[in-house]
């Protein structure tokens, strides 16, 4: 592990070099232990998972990097109570009308549209982190056959629920925001609602599976949500 100060109120803990599902689960486990009342170090305010890191935000009146580092190392050494990843199933409609970039993605990857859908829906993903906007999950790893750079021209508005891919990741836009990823489907689920507890549907470390649904099913589910 590496520890880097970010000013006098944050400490960046780096747990590995390359992003992976296993590393995300380790980061998530450390996050949970650091923010659980029983094992929470004094002065720690919050922790933000990254692909290979955990940012600790603290009150410098109550702690410092040396004490936090000691606390992190002690938790790392303690016997790990296994935290089973939660499995979340997310229905996705890949119909043309909700997937404006699907045909182009298929063409650029040299695949049929059905093959793209099969590759996207066939595997389990891990939530590496939430960021960019409230509740926006970075899900890894995308099939190597679907890896494309971000769009050259980002869209000014991507609809909420859009399921997207770019580089090694797939994601879901929780709100209507600008965005530069390729849109290949839409989910009727609400990814983020500040009035819900917890507000985000996913959390770092979760395992995610996409289930294809028809346009009719999408419309029925949207209406009932």
């Amino acid at each position: 592990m590496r520890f880097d100060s970010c000013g006098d109120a944050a400490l960046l803990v780096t747990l590995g070099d390359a992003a992976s599902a296993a590393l995300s689960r380790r980061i998530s486990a450390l996050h949970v232990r650091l923010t659980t009342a029983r094992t929470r170090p004094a002065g720690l305010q919050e922790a933000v998972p990254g692909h290979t890191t955990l940012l600790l935000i603290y009150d410098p009146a109550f702690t410092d990097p040396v004490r936090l580092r000691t606390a992190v190392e002690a938790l790392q050494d303690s016997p790990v109570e296994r935290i089973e990843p939660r499995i979340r199933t997310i229905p996705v409609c890949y119909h043309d009308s909700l997937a404006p970039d699907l045909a182009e993605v298929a063409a650029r990857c040299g695949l049929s549209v059905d093959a793209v859908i099969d590759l996207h829906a066939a595997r389990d993903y891990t939530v590496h982190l939430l960021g960019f906007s409230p509740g926006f999950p970075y899900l890894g790893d995308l099939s190597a056959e679907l890896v494309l750079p971000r769009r050259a021209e980002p869209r000014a508005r991507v609809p909420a629920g859009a399921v997207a891919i770019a580089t090694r990741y797939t994601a879901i836009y929780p709100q209507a925001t600008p965005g530069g990823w390729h849109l290949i489907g839409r989910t009727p689920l609400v990814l983020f609602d500040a009035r819900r507890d917890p507000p985000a549907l996913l959390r770092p470390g979760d395992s995610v599976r996409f289930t294809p649904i028809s346009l009719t099913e999408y419309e029925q589910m949207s209406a009932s949500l």
Partner: protein
Amino acid sequence: MTHLEIMRAGIHTSLQDDGRRGYRDLGVPGSGALDPLTLRLLNALLDNRDGTGALELLYGGITVRARDGALRFALGCAAGRIVQHGGIRDVPPWHTAVLDRDETLTIAAPAGTAAAYMAVEGGFAVETVLGSVSTYGPGALGGWQGRLLHRGDRLPILNTAPACRRERMLTHGLAPAAPSVLRVMAGPQQSRFVRGALDTLTASPYRVTPSSNRSGLRLDGAPLRHEEGHDLLSEGVATGSLQVPGTGQPVLLIADHPTVGGYPKIATVISADLAAAGRLRIGGEVRFALVDAHAARDARLAAQAEHAARLATIRDVP
């Protein structure tokens, strides 16, 4: 219930408190007042709970009217003028005053600093969202309907009993001025920059460009060159980070900054200077001075002592 009606909404007026804590892991930014020091002084002056939300007037002045009752308020970093039947009453900053039912208050645009504040006794009666009334516009969270204030909005005010108290003042308020120097600590990724990049950062001033907003101050000055590319796996970012994209021009991350970022950070503004960073205006210039953790601690204690000394200058208005 008393309401504050917005007659003229200014340029970028929003409700902000001391920020949203504990949801950054879900991608929810901290938000809150750009100048939390001014907010704290106004709340102390009005005997409000520390961290109570107030109106933040970014760059522009506003006009408001008291509806359905009277209210007590105080202004930070800008002066106001109340127009009534008999004439006008001037309200200096750092003084409490009463706005009577149907009276109109005009608050001047902040000068010398980016934001002025209007706090009301008791605070605004709006729903807290994820523990805060701060407005996060890009996510339509908190504040008044998740957005900037518009003409015609009527904000309810909690519990005002303005009749039965003497007015108070802060004899040593904050001067409405932006800082000329911000102190930074190196890192977390100074090693991703060419040798001497920290010297470049501290050698000459940077100008705040017009594409700045409540998320980040986009700076323009001597470019900071990366050693090994500017792509980083996205990671949590601290408020006050100087994040450097491929252009080499740093972005100072402030209140509404995204919780994660994928560019290297050469340095981070120390906690004692974050409120000052929020006072920087577009077009203004600032220098950076490198300090170590001990100096950051001394600066934090000095800032606390200075704040306590200011609070000790609260007096009844004679």
